[in-house]
């Protein structure tokens, strides 16, 4: 009985310590920097899993350490052979099997299904009537952004780099396609890319011949200069230029966004 009690006590103690550690990690944001409502969903799910899995982790690791400390023979000694050993323990098996089934069902219900339901709800057309639409075209190897509501076909930095700029707290609908817009006769001739803004906490693959949508709302004014996770980056290998298939991103206030749209229009009209 002694070992069981010691182990249980230690498990509880270390789990509590682990949970305290989790609180610290969660306060410092385990995903480093998340500035979108979509990303918040991911972050919450991540934190939930972290909290629930900590006792599991502690259980197994503690067991391994416990084995090495308590359940070993001295070096060179054979284990005693004069005992009868249990090869089954219904209670333990029941708790283990039942526990793992329960835990996995829990994970499937929350956060898996619940978070996906929230995400699907954000994707509903009804929830996205007047938001900002950004057409994102992935091409080897650049991101081309156009804003059909503002008549902007390709937004650029003064340096000629493609630039994504978004107003803060406005829902955005990204329309993701992969092809070469300069060669309309060859609509499909490109490869799979993945539209990823690390700070938005979501990525979506862009597949030639198919259109994908991504909905999110940026929640803070920020840019690459503020945090390098605020950037558009291709996340799916797309050939030799893949590491540089990138684009700066700025999330700005409504007024700044309006000014920026004006400036871009002026730039486009020469």
């Amino acid at each position: 009985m002694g070992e069981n009690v010691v182990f249980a006590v230690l498990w509880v103690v270390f789990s509590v310590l682990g949970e305290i550690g989790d609180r610290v990690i969660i306060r410092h944001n385990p995903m480093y920097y998340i500035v979108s409502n979509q990303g918040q969903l991911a972050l919450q799910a991540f934190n939930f899993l972290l909290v629930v899995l900590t006792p599991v982790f502690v259980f197994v690791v503690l067991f391994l350490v416990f084995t090495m400390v308590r359940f070993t023979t001295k070096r060179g000694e054979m284990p005693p052979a004069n005992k009868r050993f249990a090869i089954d323990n219904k209670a333990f098996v029941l708790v283990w099997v039942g526990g793992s089934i329960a835990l996995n069902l829990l994970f499937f219900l929350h956060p898996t299904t619940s978070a996906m339901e929230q995400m699907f709800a954000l994707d509903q057309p009804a929830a996205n009537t007047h938001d900002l639409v950004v057409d994102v075209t992935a091409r080897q190897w650049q991101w081309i952004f156009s804003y059909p509501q503002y008549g902007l076909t390709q937004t650029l930095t003064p340096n000629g780099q493609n630039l994504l700029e978004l107003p803060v707290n406005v829902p955005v609908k990204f329309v993701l396609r992969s092809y070469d817009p300069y060669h309309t006769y060859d609509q499909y001739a490109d490869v799979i890319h993945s539209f990823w803004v690390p700070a938005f906490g979501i990525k979506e693959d862009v597949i030639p011949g198919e259109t994908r949508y991504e909905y999110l709302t940026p929640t803070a004014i920020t840019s690459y200069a503020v945090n390098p996770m605020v950037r558009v980056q291709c996340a799916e290998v797309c050939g030799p230029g893949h590491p540089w298939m990138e684009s700066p991103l700025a999330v700005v206030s409504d007024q700044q966004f309006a000014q920026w749209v004006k400036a871009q229009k002026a730039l486009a009209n020469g």
Partner: protein
Amino acid sequence: MAHAMTVPESGHAPRPRKAPMPPVLRAFLWAAIGFLLLNTFVIAVDPFRGHPFVTGPSVVFGWVGAAIGWLLGIGLYDAVLLPLMGFPTRWQERQQGWRRYWEFATDHKVIGLQYMMFAVGGFLIAGGIAMLMRYELMTPYLTIFHYPSNYLTAVGIHGTLMMFSFATVFMIGGLGNYFVPLMIGARETVLSKLSGIGVWLVPVGILTVLFSPLLGEWSTGWRGYEPLAGQDANGILFYYLGVLALTMSSLIVALNLVATVMFRRAPGLTWGRLPLFVWGQVTVNLLMLIWFPEIQTTFVMALLDKVVPLNFFTATGSPLTYLMLFWLFGHPEVYIIAVPAFAIWNEIIPVMAQKSLFGRQWAVIGLVFVMMLSGLVWAHHMFTNLRNSEILPFSFFTEMISIPTGFAYMSAIGTLWKSKVRLNTPMLWILMSMFNFLIGGLTGVFLADPIVNLQLHDTFWVVGHFHYTIIGSMVFSGFGAIYYWLPKLSGRTFNETWGKTLAIITFLAFNLTFSQFFLLGLHGMNRWVPAYPAYLQPMNFEVSIFAFILGAAFLGNILYIGYCWRNGAQAGENPWGAKTPEWFTSSPAPRYNFPVQPEIVGSLYLYGEGTKVPVVTTALGELAATSRATQDPQFDWHDYAPDGGGVTS
């Protein structure tokens, strides 16, 4: 084998005829001839003029010619084809000496060692490439790789060789071939000749993939994603062809082992008594028999896309179909690698603890259910490109597969609880493997959750996750198994201090390297990039340092095992006090494994008071009434030596 290293001196005897060419060199020569013949033929009939001597189509046929030439040269012609067609042959199997490892053999132990030898070769090559990759990633811009395409090709060769020539080959082709027949008390495998041929496809595959840059760089990594693969240079052809050779080899192993377990079990070795390692092998062999033909077909379709060209997976075809077909194989592949490791844990733990295995049936059920579920989870590799409606079912099965996986832990924990286990080198590796796979599994729970996956997919989190699962399970358990079976393989043993020191160094270096991958991934490090934003450099630099230590540690272990193999202290016949049949014969086992057919009379995993020795090898002098030979009039030792031991009926 150390005791068989004598090279016969034949200076005193008159040579009746010229010494033959070493089979490996003859195989290279015939491969070159085969390549030239078919390549030239295709070039000659190719209606398009002005092309170079080697084109995409010609190299495919040339490769087929080279592979056939290689196999014929290594022994297929002498040893199989001639007798098969009823012609006399001068081939005779070599029974001893180092030369038998460098030619065609039918002894499953020789074949197993050949598999291990080639797999370790593949591991060292791919590991060396990993070192180059880590060196490149120490800086955020290109250094030793001049162009990203070089780096991406290196990534592809690293992944392909690790997956197909090491991870699937070492445990199954190597340890499986060597130990499954021994552990079921068999004296030979069923398809011993086919198996002897199959092992020589491994060097074909390794060399093909390794030399793929000769045909041009390819950028897809080991997954060969379309339509990018369609854009790549012809190097991608050698990826397809190399994987075809390697999977064909593994397919032969799977077929052979399944048939052997079906038909060659010792009397008394019922399915209920089958050793866990054999269960693990049989389950993954079934997986291989289902999914390897599937990926081979897919790769042939991709190959045709490239050389004809056709349009299955190109941008105007359906790229997602390739992804589906790839992962349909790709996820079972992960379990093909991991399941034998789970089996090894519960093989070694009861021996080292001298304690009965806890919940044996649960351990077996776990292996079987992992096998069955593994075909239902593939699309979790595709959460970022699936339709939304398809995400949840795959997420469900992915989360559920952790339940049977956990049974391996349950059995191990139940066995170790209140035990007195010998914490020696093999046991230490097993405990480390359990720890590492735990991290791999728990980080997989995050990935199985779609909303989290959408952030973590294609980042270094995923890289860390699968290195933890695969190295954590397969490599650590593989080292455990090799240290455990070293006395069986070589008759020699190792020094505990050295073994444990190397294990601990490897463990620390491994964890310091790959645990930081999770942080890198969370911080925005994506995959397949030799150049990355500068803020990620400090951690990458540090990871690389640990990675070099890890590489050195792996190399140190391999060298140390090689050293002990030849120079270690003599080991006893059954140094760990194990009960599985492989320990009930001399070490290393003789040609037909057991002097007489052993019989299994009890459970192999029960220890302690009142249990008996489960394996009975009737003493030669007293073939008593217990022997099957006296009870079964049909009994014939030929059953256990399929080629009739050289005698015809």
